[in-house]
């Protein structure tokens, strides 16, 4: 959960604050847990929501028009250099806010674009575009991160 919060916020210090606030909420709202999902899933959802709220409060989440920027980036192909968890984690942290959040929620947290769109108040199409942008950027970042 701590690493999920870092990937959403891009910063470990803020992730620590989110974990504190999120777990405080968990204890306060424990009586509302309906056992429709596992307790772990429920807690993770609270942590993710707290992290997203934190991100919204601290900075305006940018989901700018990406068409122009996407054209400048190499097309993401299916071939990625081999990487381990740490390399990917570091590369994700380098992504811009919008792309990083969407990539984390879709690829790592296995959320659908529809759910992401609802959660972030964006369109499904924007979510998909941000994901595509994240992949293109990661294709550039991963080898750099692996080498360093």
């Amino acid at each position, binding site marked *: 959960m701590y690493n999920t919060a870092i990937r959403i916020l891009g910063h470990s210090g803020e992730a*620590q604050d989110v974990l504190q606030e999120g777990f405080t909420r968990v204890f306060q709202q424990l009586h509302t847990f309906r056992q429709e999902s596992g307790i772990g899933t429920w807690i993770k959802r609270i942590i993710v929501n707290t992290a997203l709220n934190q991100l919204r409060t601290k900075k305006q989440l940018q989901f700018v028009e990406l068409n122009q920027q996407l054209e400048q980036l190499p097309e993401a192909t*299916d071939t990625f250099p081999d990487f381990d968890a740490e390399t990917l984690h570091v590369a994700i942290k380098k992504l811009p806010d919008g792309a990083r959040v969407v990539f984390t929620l879709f*690829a790592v947290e296995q959320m659908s674009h529809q759910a992401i769109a609802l959660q972030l108040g964006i369109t499904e199409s924007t979510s998909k575009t941000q994901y595509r942008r994240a992949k293109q950027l990661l294709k550039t970042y991963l080898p750099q991160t692996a080498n360093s």
Partner: protein
Amino acid sequence: MDALEKRIKALQESMDEVEMPDSQAIWAGIVTLSEKKAPWWRKPFWWISFGILLLGSGISLGYWWSESKHQPAEHMPIADLPEPWRNKAIEYQKLVSEQETQMHALLAANTQLPLEAKELEELDRLQQDFMADFQALPKDEKTAARYLHYYEQKIRILELIIKQIQLRRNETEKRQSLDI
């Protein structure tokens, strides 16, 4: 699912262990946040107190309405009225007294007053003004007609109020029996 997504899925578990949090600092923070005092207005004590105060004010207001505003108005003197109207006035005064008694008996169980109560209050005030002028007015047909007119109006309004209170009471009883 493309190659990247497959790879991430394979790394899922280790992705959660890349950075380790300072557990002690996090727990200390959770404890501090949990112990943080809620603002005074979020404490149940204040809401309960506010509720009691509101209820108390409502009861006092209701009592004030029923005790001060709806005291049976003093009857106008009839001794000076010429004979044919005097009997009518006595009949009206009796009827008004009966209606007021009935209304107050109903109000004891149902303090919510219908809108017509305002009209009654206004009429009582006009009647008091008329009573103040009554001695100076000539005791003729015109004055007698005005005199009786107040009572006729009052009888009509009291009738309406009683009906409204009874109707409301019946509805409440019906609702209560349905709830049971």
